[in-house]
């Protein structure tokens, strides 16, 4: 049995949220650079150049990539041979978020749903945990802005609506968002399971590296078909018109009930901030 002390978890979280908000991963920067060649609109190309300049400035001069430094979405994979010592995992994650957002000069965006009073420290984190084989403790953070999250949707389709129904929902959400979720976007689609599983899968789909296709040929084909359809909408970078509306689409699919077809769409902005660490 391996022991992981909560202090290690707190420090890791603090660092991950700061790194994520200042240092756009190379995978995203490279994909934005490739998008300049794919983009047909001169205005769209100019926007993409601004985004690359922005990522470089953020990293080199230590300025957050975007002022919306997001809600603190945190995925933790705990090996079943790991024992957490020194306190509660949930408290440790929240403490890591608190320190990261304070020490990193990150904006605190968590508030009461109706009173809109800010919680002041960007907690509570959105924490997802998974028990996995082994003795590793893996943390992935995905600070997620409000502008893109607002265009997510879960819909319980009628099974007869099939793939076409799924595709229509994805396009409906992309079109409804238009310029607001800060295109070029990344689209996560969760299919199957039940109501909450589909939503979770759509978020998990966003964690896949850009440009990576699903191992399942049926799913890989869906990803490419959706990407092509989204890029035909004409929305383009920032919604100013163009041929690169999405940088990528990832689909996760699991079996569902014989009476159901749950589909969830989760939209991510181009400032795709994601970092992971293994303790």
């Amino acid at each position, binding site marked *: 049995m391996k022991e992981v002390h909560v202090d290690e978890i707190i420090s890791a979280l603090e660092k991950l949220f700061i790194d994520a908000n200042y240092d756009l991963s190379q995978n995203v920067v490279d994909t934005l650079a490739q998008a300049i060649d794919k983009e047909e609109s001169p205005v769209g190309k100019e926007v993409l150049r601004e985004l690359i300049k922005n990522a470089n400035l953020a990293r080199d001069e230590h300025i957050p990539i975007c002022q*919306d430094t997001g809600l603190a979405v945190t995925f933790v994979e705990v090996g079943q041979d790991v024992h957490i010592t020194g306190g509660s995992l949930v408290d440790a994650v929240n403490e890591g978020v608190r320190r990261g957002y304070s020490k990193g000069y990150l904006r605190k965006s968590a508030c009461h749903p109706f009173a809109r009073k800010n919680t002041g420290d960007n907690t509570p984190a959105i924490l997802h945990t998974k028990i996995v084989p082994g003795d590793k403790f893996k943390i992935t953070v995905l600070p997620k*802005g409000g502008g893109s999250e607002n265009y997510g949707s879960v819909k319980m389709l009628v099974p007869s609506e099939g793939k076409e129904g799924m595709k229509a929902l994805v396009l409906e959400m992309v079109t409804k968002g238009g310029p607001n979720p800060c295109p070029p976007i990344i689209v996560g689609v969760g299919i199957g399971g039940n109501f909450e599983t589909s939503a979770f899968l759509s978020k998990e789909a966003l964690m896949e590296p850009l440009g990576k296709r699903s191992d399942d040929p049926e799913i890989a084909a869906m990803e490419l078909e959706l990407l092509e359809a989204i890029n035909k909408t004409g929305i383009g970078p*920032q919604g100013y018109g163009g041929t690169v509306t999405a940088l990528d689409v990832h689909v996760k699919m699991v079996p569902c009930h014989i009476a159901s077809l749950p589909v969830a769409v989760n939209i991510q902005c181009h400032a795709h901030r994601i970092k992971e660490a293994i303790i």
Partner: protein
Amino acid sequence: MEMKRIKAPLEDKVIEELRAGEKVFLSGYIYTARDTAHKRFIDTLNQGGKLPFDIQSQVIYYCGPSPAPPGRVIGACGPTTSSRMDAYSPRLIALGLKGMIGKGKRSQAVKEAIKQYRAIYFGATGGAGALLSKSVTSSEVIAYEDLGPEAVVRLGVVDMPLFVINDIYGSDLYETGTSRYKR
């Protein structure tokens, strides 16, 4: 692509020259205000009060920056979604507001006010908060300090990169751009 250098406060003759789709670099002074500040502006006007700054010919930036670290003027300061201010903007435009900077589509009422009162709507690149912060040379809270990131701040800007979205001729870059590249 053509790029123009313009100054804030905005003069009518400059606004007349601007067309949707153009990139411009804005220098001068602008004011940040987002959801709650706008609500307070309108509440103040309804009570017969005065706005915290003379709005004539001015430019409002829909922005709630991240905290400024020591030694810096401002943190990241990209735009927020403009549509949340649609309910308030026509009244401010009628009072002399000339420019708005944000991201995303505006309502028909805002577009009508832009035409009628000869104002302009610019898009700043959403998610380019670091890049936009490099244009800011000074920052001074002038009202509603209690609102934190939503306070009204007077920003000195030099060559702030913007795109013209809605011009006084009724053109809308979101509509023309999307229909041009729709397949």
